[in-house]
């Protein structure tokens, strides 16, 4: 008896959890993102909901087959993201992968997608390497990337007179990339970089770094960080009166960050984003539907999830197949035009569409909840994404 008990424990435990499911009669969309930590508000489970909304609005079926959404929390770990992608492709017959936040996970997943020859559409991650040094014939970078953010915010602010910059950078690859890209843009536009300080990721108190920024004499403080770090730096900047002598430029910020900080501390800030819910009627309509379900306004990433899903399903319908190569060819040849944006996908996988320079409103100007920003300028896609000359991608020569 004891033998069977022990064996049963092990067998049940392993087999039950590891068995694969196989069914070829559905179209499967996979989605992994950070659902539980740093970036869970920007994308998270509402990001999955946005994809489901797109599936439902499309009719729930494509090419006569029902559409299924598989989603999982990658907890910001590249291993989990890549393993999940690999597992879904190998055992669940996945047709397309949609990517959530965190560049490390996106790069790892892109490698798996390339190896397995499956389509991968990235929204949440920002690394421009996805369509540059690490480009792949199976990757589409849909929403935004660090180059666009840098060019957008950098050029716009220098044009407005903000010539002297100081950078507060999160000390990791993404932060460095954001700092370098923006610094290059600033210098090219005639500005100067007075200095930079690198803070470890997840620093809780930025007061010391901000003091260094202030003593540099620069007029613009570029925040080359994201998520909790950005929020903490802005809060401290307001507290120490830094905002009286310097203007803050959030190089990667989302409407959820503004929401959690409040307008008092963020008013007057500039940020570049790929979409804002209040930019036009179509966007407002989508936002209203989203708000009804999530009780929060959608971020650009969540909107991108919806748009990317619809675009993918349209491409599948036009190509009459879910084969990744054929759908990709369709995606790169079709014109995209919806509430999220208007444009097309380049040979290197980059979706070129307008980006928006947003300015945070003063508390007095905000008329309703989530009415936080106004569009200060619309930036043309060709002007802000990586140019052919700068690109190292073999697919775009």
């Amino acid at each position: 008896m004891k033998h069977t008990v022990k064996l049963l424990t092990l067998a049940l435990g392993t087999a039950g959890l590891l068995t694969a499911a196989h069914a070829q009669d559905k179209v499967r969309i996979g989605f992994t993102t950070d659902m539980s930590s740093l970036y869970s508000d920007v994308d998270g489970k509402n990001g999955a909901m946005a994809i489901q909304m797109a599936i439902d609005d499309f009719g729930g079926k494509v090419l006569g087959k029902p559409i299924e959404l598989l989603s999982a929390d990658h907890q910001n770990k590249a291993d989990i993201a890549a393993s999940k992608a690999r597992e879904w492709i190998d055992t669940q017959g996945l047709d397309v992968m949609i990517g959530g936040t965190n560049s490390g996970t996106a790069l790892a997943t892109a490698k798996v997608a390339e190896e397995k020859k499956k389509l991968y559409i990235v929204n949440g991650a920002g690394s421009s390497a996805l369509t540059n040094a690490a480009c792949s014939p199976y990757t589409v970078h849909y929403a935004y990337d660090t180059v666009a953010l840098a060019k957008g915010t950098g050029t716009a602010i220098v044009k407005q007179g903000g010539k002297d910059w100081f950078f507060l950078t999160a000390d990791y690859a993404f932060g460095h990339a954001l700092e370098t890209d923006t610094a290059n843009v600033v210098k090219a536009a005639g500005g100067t970089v007075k200095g930079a300080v690198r803070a470890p990721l997840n620093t809780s108190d930025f007061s010391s770094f901000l003091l260094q920024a202030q003593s540099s004499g620069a007029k613009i403080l570029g925040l080359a960080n994201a998520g909790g770090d950005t929020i903490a730096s802005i809060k401290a900047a307001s507290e120490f009166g830094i905002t009286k002598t310097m203007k803050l430029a959030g190089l990667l910020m989302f409407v959820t960050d503004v929401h959690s900080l409040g307008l008092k501390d963020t008013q007057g800030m500039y940020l570049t984003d790929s979409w804002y819910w209040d930019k036009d009627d179509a966007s407002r309509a989508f936002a209203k539907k989203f708000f009804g379900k999530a009780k929060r306004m959608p971020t650009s990433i969540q909107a991108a999830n919806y748009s990317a899903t619809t675009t993918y399903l349209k491409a599948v319908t036009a190509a009459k197949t879910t084969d990744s190569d054929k759908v990709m060819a369709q995606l790169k040849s079709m014109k995209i035009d919806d509430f999220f944006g208007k444009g097309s996908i380049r040979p290197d996988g980059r979706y070129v569409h307008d980006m928006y320079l947003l300015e945070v409103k003063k508390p007095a100007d905000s008329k309703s909840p989530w009415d936080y920003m106004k569009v200060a300028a619309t930036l043309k896609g060709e002007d802000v994404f990586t140019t052919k000359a700068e690109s190292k991608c073999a697919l775009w020569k």
Partner: protein
Amino acid sequence: MNTTSKNILYGLLLLVLLAVPFIGIYPVLVMKLLCFALFASAFNLLLGYTGLLSFGHAAFLGGSAYVAGHALKVWGVPAELGLLLGTLTGAVLGWLVGSLAIRRQGIYFTMITLALAQMLFFFCLQMPFTGGEDGLQGVPRGHLLGFIDLGNDRIMYYVTLLITVAAFLLIMRIVHSPFGQILKAIKENEPRAISLGYDTQRFKLLVFVLSAALSGLAGSLKTLAMGFATLTDVHWSMSGSVVLMTLVGGLGTLSGPLVGATVVIALENKLGEIGHFLAGLTGIDWFNGLGESVTMVIGFIFVVCVLAFRRGIMGEVIALVERWRGKQA
């Protein structure tokens, strides 16, 4: 439980593992599991058998993962050399950390291992060759011994199985040897062991290096199988993870870490599906949201294990069996 019945059970387990690709279980997930099972077993040598709690074992897993990954990707060495380099890295790091840590006892020993592991984390974060937050990606599998193509998932699986089984047999051998007995003596009462004439510091250092080397093997194997090495591998939460695996499975038992690793990995990867399964079973909708609560569930298991299942799953099972046998006699 006598040796023959134990061996029969291990044999059965081996048969199940050999059959994995054929019974529809996803081999890549099992490969990951095998690596972590090895990591947990190596850690258990130190904690369960010698009584030394290291809170920095991620340094050996991750440090070796990076070295092996770098060797395989950038220097283009064959797979077996990559694994060897990784294991050696684990041994060297183990020797460095161990010689410093064993100078102190108890909680101070633990704290030194944590401090040194954090410094290694910082080093890995700053060094460009690790790829920082992006991780070391695109590590090729290549060929083993020149002709075995590891690109094939099935072949890679059997190679992984072979190596982990061999390493596990080594651990088994260590535990059941006179050396293993001395380790147990050190755990129970170090002053007495010293008074019997044993140079306990030398033994502690040796088992530390062994544990670190085997952890290094686990890390390198994982890099080879999965194709990347990331900061998660050197983060202190990984050190915490392996403690959890060992605790949940059963300290001081050989099979404990295997069970513990399975439970923890299954949780991390499959919680969402377990949630849906439980929701379907019990009709309680709350379970459907379980997938987002990985940390909460793990925390809950920690608490339950410490309060009720201190001996871990296998510890409790073995105790149950002994009691049952006792009744028989």
